[in-house]
């Protein structure tokens, strides 16, 4: 077996009360492609941030070629020999391809001015190593993302990196581009580079990687040889079998006879989601499963008017409705707890009370304000009901922990007594207790007749909570399963082995 290029041991990182990474280890060998797998919140991004110096670990060590390193900035990591290429290419789109390759180390004339000819030639040579033949004078931004990524990889080559981290590089590439990328990755592997490949596409992992490291809930699940691991076993390792206390006892009771609440016909948007059909009854919890990038979030955004659909329509109680902006959806009695809690959910500077009344107030119009007393009693009631840990409802939301912030966003929507509640990974990145409480509340709400669209990456959550589970794969609907189905069936549908 070839030499170890990078060895990370016992890396831990906590943010406040949440443990993002708990003693994780990783071994990268020279001349291998190593896949890093895990669900949202498994600790993949934290691990990468520690390796690239974007953040420093609380404990643990990183060795590069046997030498201990402790990069404190991405630049230091780069100088040490660890280069990273992100999905969002971290180069300057307005500079030319050649300039992006040489920025920071331009060759000069005797005059002191940049030797453009040499830059151009060097750039062509570097790109030729990746078998990329393009006009290096055009701005980088004028090329497709696939080419931009190649350029980023070429830059890493140019600064002679030992370790290359590819963070979700294939998310926005088409089939052909992925093949091109893989060809390049193989060439680099032959040259002895150690490549860490982060992705959520199972087939790609099997197509290219030699070994796989799986993380779950911030901890190492294990390191596997790709050849010896079935797809289902991999998904099981990622998804886990966590015990969920809350469970739907009277499954499917009455929902069959319950009125149809929302009907989605052929809803889709170019490059985001292919036409999807879906229906939700009152009092039903419809689970939406699928891996990251399968189109789960896109469906929620279309349904809530955050993005406009290119095609299809949505009917509420039989009537077609136009969802041009979120306020339209709110007027229809829809509610959305978004995946990105910090940027799309909470308004950090406002108090708990103000965050909770915001949507109800927005629906009521600006003129009819609720009295302060009414606001406070509503806020206190919801704080108590959801068990939000805060002494005073006038505390700014930014000061709360992640789980409590998520509950505030949920409380905001419960205040509007919605007909349809869309929850996009509501339990992501929050502690176990808060997770159980949120799931218990979802069940209570459904019992009271609310329709719930529950998006989750956790298998256990889906099978125990939902009346029906729709699964998305590759931006289209892969199938639907009824309550009482086996977890294995869902896994197979998600993994595409059916």
């Amino acid at each position, binding site marked *: 077996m070839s030499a170890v290029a990078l060895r990370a041991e016992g890396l831990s990182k906590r943010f406040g009360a949440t443990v993002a990474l708990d003693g994780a280890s990783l071994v990268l060998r020279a001349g291998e492609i190593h896949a890093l797998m895990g669900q949202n919140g498994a600790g993949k991004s934290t691990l990468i941030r520690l390796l690239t110096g974007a953040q420093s670990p609380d404990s643990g060590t990183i060795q590069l070629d046997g030498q201990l390193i402790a990069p404190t900035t991405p630049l230091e990591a780069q100088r040490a020999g660890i280069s990273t290429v992100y999905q969002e290419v971290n180069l300057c789109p307005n500079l030319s391809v050649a300039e992006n390759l040489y920025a920071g180390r331009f060759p000069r004339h005797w005059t002191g001015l940049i030797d453009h000819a040499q830059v151009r030639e060097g750039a062509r040579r570097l790109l030729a190593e990746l078998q990329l033949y393009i006009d290096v004078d055009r701005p980088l931004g004028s090329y497709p993302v696939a080419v931009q990524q190649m350029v980023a990889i070429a830059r890493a080559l140019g600064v002679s990196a030992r370790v290359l981290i590819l963070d979700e590089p294939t998310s926005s590439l088409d089939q052909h581009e992925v093949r091109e990328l893989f060809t390049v990755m193989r060439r680099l592997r032959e040259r002895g580079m150690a490549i860490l490949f982060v992705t959520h596409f199972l087939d790609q992992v099997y197509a290219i990687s030699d070994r796989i490291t799986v993380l779950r809930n911030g901890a190492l699940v294990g390191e596997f040889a790709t050849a010896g691991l079935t797809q289902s076993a991999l998904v099981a390792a990622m998804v886990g079998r966590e015990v969920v206390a809350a469970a739907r006892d009277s499954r499917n009771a009455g929902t069959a006879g319950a009125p149809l609440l929302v009907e989605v016909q052929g809803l889709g948007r170019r490059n985001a989601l292919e036409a999807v059909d879906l229906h939700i009854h009152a009092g039903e919890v419809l689970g939406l499963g699928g891996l990251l990038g399968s189109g789960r979030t896109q469906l929620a955004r279309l349904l809530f008017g955050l993005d406009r659909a290119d095609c299809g329509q949505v009917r509420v109680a039989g009537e077609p409705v136009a969802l041009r*902006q979120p*306020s339209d959806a709110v007027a229809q009695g829809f509610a959305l707890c*978004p995946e990105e809690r910090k*940027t799309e*959910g909470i*308004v950090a500077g406002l108090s708990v009370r103000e965050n909770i009344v915001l949507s109800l107030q*927005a629906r009521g119009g*600006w003129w009819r304000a609720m009295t302060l007393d009414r606001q406070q009693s509503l806020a206190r009631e919801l704080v108590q009901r959801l068990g939000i840990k805060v002494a005073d409802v006038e505390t700014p939301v930014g000061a709360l922990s992640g789980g409590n912030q998520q509950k505030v966003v949920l409380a905001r929507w419960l205040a509007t007594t919605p007909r349809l509640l869309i929850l996009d990974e509501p339990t992501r990145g929050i502690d176990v207790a808060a997770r159980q409480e949120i799931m218990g509340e979802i069940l209570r709400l459904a019992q009271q007749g609310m329709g719930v669209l529950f998006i989750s990456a956790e298998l256990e959550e889906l099978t125990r909570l939902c009346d029906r589970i729709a699964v998305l794969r590759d931006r289209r609907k892969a199938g639907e399963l009824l309550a009482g189905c086996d977890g294995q069936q869902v896994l197979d549908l998600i993994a595409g082995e059916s």
Partner: protein
Amino acid sequence: MRRLFVHPTFWPLAALALLLMANGLFNPGFLALQWRGGHLYGNLIDIANRAAPLALVSMGMTLVIAVRGLDISVGAVLAIAATIAAATITHLQAGSAQGSLLPLFAAIGAALVAAALCGLWNGLLVVKAGMQPIVATLILMVAGRGLAQLISDGQILTIYYAPYAFLGNGFLLGLPFALYLVVAVFIALKLLLTRTALGLFIRAIGDNPLAAHVAGVRAHTITPALYVFCACCAGMAGLLVSSNVASADANNAGQLLELDAILAVSLGGSALTGGRFNLFGSLVGALIIQTLTTTIYSIGVPPQVNLVVKAVLVMLVLLLQSPQFRQQLRMLAPAARSSA
């Protein structure tokens, strides 16, 4: 006591009080008020009266800044409103009877409508065309004075119409009318912001526009409305200014007003990055600026010092708001203490 210090308006008010007290010490007559001919006179009244146009514009600017916007066209809008008011009066005066109030109300109406249109233009450029606020309002800032001069034909329009003078020079129950206007706008706004949900929406948009959008707040309606309001404030200021000097100077009226208004807003403790705003603080900020001007005139220092003082003030306020600067201060403070 601690609560007093952290109250957002404490520091601006303390600064104003300090400034006034210093004046009182150097010049014992400074703080005196006199009752003469049924009117209240004195430096304090004079300061408040002169600060009225800036106070109005500062209130409008506060709300625009609160939603992460900026309006640098207020000076130009003031000039447009003043010119339109003067032109309307000149136009109508000939046709109407002596002492008729029709030209007065027509002038007020025309000026405010013109200002509102300017604001709508700014708001649409920001929201619909998606321009950065400073760029969107730069356009009107550049072209606005040209438009005003187009209306006035490049002349300074003199107003020979007694009723109009009341706006900027008249007294009501012993106090200048302009003060009533400022207080009325302030109270109306305060009611609107606290009794309706508008204040909540504005702070939500300023703090996190995306989250506010997801929560169903209609930022695309509220933001242009605030630009319209800000421009209307500039319009009212234009009425006061042109009435006060009985003329409208399209080229010079409201020169550098946008800068003073931004200064007043930041002095008042609002965050220039949006979200947190303090309407009353901005009023105090406007008063501070005017008090400084009056002080500088009254102690006989060349009035040009005013600009330098303003520059130093704005830098101080900005630095104190900067987290990086505060951190540096905190690091310096213990070092100084241990060395002492």
